[in-house]
């Protein structure tokens, strides 16, 4: 399934913040985690993740540092800040509003679907 561009753009910030809120991590791991969470449906252009991370860092939602990982490779690790958590919570509430509204619509649709079936 191909997700629309707008949807990807809108959801990337809460998703990235959410993944980093699980614990300090670096770009490649974030991409892997997102694929795993979406069952492979969310496939980003990997290069686009980094400008986003830098933007979130500039906004004060993330902090970063260079660390040498277990495989002896230097990576830039990102961790969420208090401000980031606040932003994530706000995003969460907004998305829940949309989520609830959509859920209700989906429910109504299935109900009327069932209804239709009875008529046939």
């Amino acid at each position, binding site marked *: 399934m191909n997700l629309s561009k707008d949807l990807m753009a809108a959801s990337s910030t809460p998703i990235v913040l959410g993944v980093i809120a699980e614990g300090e991590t670096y770009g490649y791991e974030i991409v892997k985690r997102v694929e795993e969470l979406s069952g492979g449906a969310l496939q980003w252009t990997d*290069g686009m993740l980094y400008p986003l991370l*830098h933007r979130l860092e500039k906004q004060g939602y993330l902090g970063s540092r260079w660390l040498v990982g277990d495989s002896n490779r230097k990576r830039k690790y990102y961790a969420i800040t208090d401000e980031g958590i606040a932003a994530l919570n706000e995003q969460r509430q907004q998305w829940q509003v949309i989520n609830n509204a959509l859920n209700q619509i989906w429910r109504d649709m299935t109900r009327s679907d069932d209804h239709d079936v009875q008529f046939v």
Partner: protein
Amino acid sequence: MMSNSSNQPFELEQNIAQWREFVLRRAAILEEDADELESHLRDQIDALLERGLHADEAFLVATKRIGNLEAVSKEYAEVHAGRLWRNIVWGTDKPSWNTDFYLALLLACCAAVLFHLPKLFGVTPETHEWVFARNFTLFCLPMLGAYYVVKHQLGQRGWYWLVGASLGIATVINLMPWQAESATQSLSLIHLPLLLWFLVGVLYTGNWWQTDGRRMDFVRYSGEYAIYFVLLALGGMTLIVLTNGMFWLIGMNIEWFTHQWLLPSGVMGAVIIVGWLVEAKQGAVENMAPVLARIFTPLFTLLMLTFLVIMFVTGRSFDVERELLIGLDALLIVVLGLVLYAVSSRESNKAPSIFDRLQWLLIVSALLVDVLALVAIGGRIADMGFTANRTAAMGENLILLVSLSGYAWLYWRFIRGQRSFALLEQWQTRFIPVYAIWAAIVVFLFPLVFGF
């Protein structure tokens, strides 16, 4: 980029280095961002290799997944709007500018204090000149290394390397039972800075030392470092001359202060401050150093060719004196430095130009001078036997012979359009450890073999 359609094996490292260069060509993407993207690329390639893909397939898929670099760099430019101006505006938007400077200043002070510390115990440069000759590079270069351990966040392993290596070298150098006047000691001390500079290089590049691209960065860094150091030294000299003059005019002689305190502290400190300058003001010299290399390449070529012609015409070529030999070797080392830097600052995708031909001519004339020097040394060794000095000169010229021949050959193939420039870069970066190993041999083994 994919060259494996022929029978050549796919060079993963080389392709990654090329890709990195391609990424860095965008003004909005800085060195550090390229590091981040490269580590992502490598993680991706590793994962794909584990799944059984071939190196070339893994590379292709991984770069594809990074995405269209044009679009990615546009995103970078949007996030970091100031960056597009970094080559024009004298300054940087890095937030760590200040902390970096204070760190460098602190380490510079440490180096200066280290230099003066022995004076407390009655060991002064006047009374114990050899003690200072042995140690003065050990006062400052490890401090420069420390700057990079902190700045590039190399962590504990970085400290182990730095402290272990510098303490080890310092102990060995100082515990050797040197004679009062010895050629091996002079040789050892001449080569010691080279060895320490290699240590700085490893710390500067961090654990990316293994990659060709980063070694090339280090060569570039060394060239820019040299230019900044000369600039700072000029400023320092002016300051000292003026200070002496001003106080002399009011009837005070303060040369004891400027020469014994100000000058050594300044030199020690400058070693670290320059390290900071090169990175903080990279945009400034980045544009100047390649121009300097281009100006001096034809001049040095002219010098060497004229010299060779005159030597042959006057028939003096087989009668090379000791002093002249030292001069020739010094010249060759400067030329090698010029070649190293010129290669590192060249964009590898550009087609061969007139400058590449000049560069080739420079290398070939250096090669001829090197052969001349080798013949002379061979003659002296045949006549008077091996000494430390002659062996060192012989070894150095042999290494230069191999290195320059490689350059000459690969440049020739490149100009003829038969080989890519990347091979030449690879030759250069893979040869760097040879210089370091040779320096280590002269520093540590020569005294054992030829006596102290």
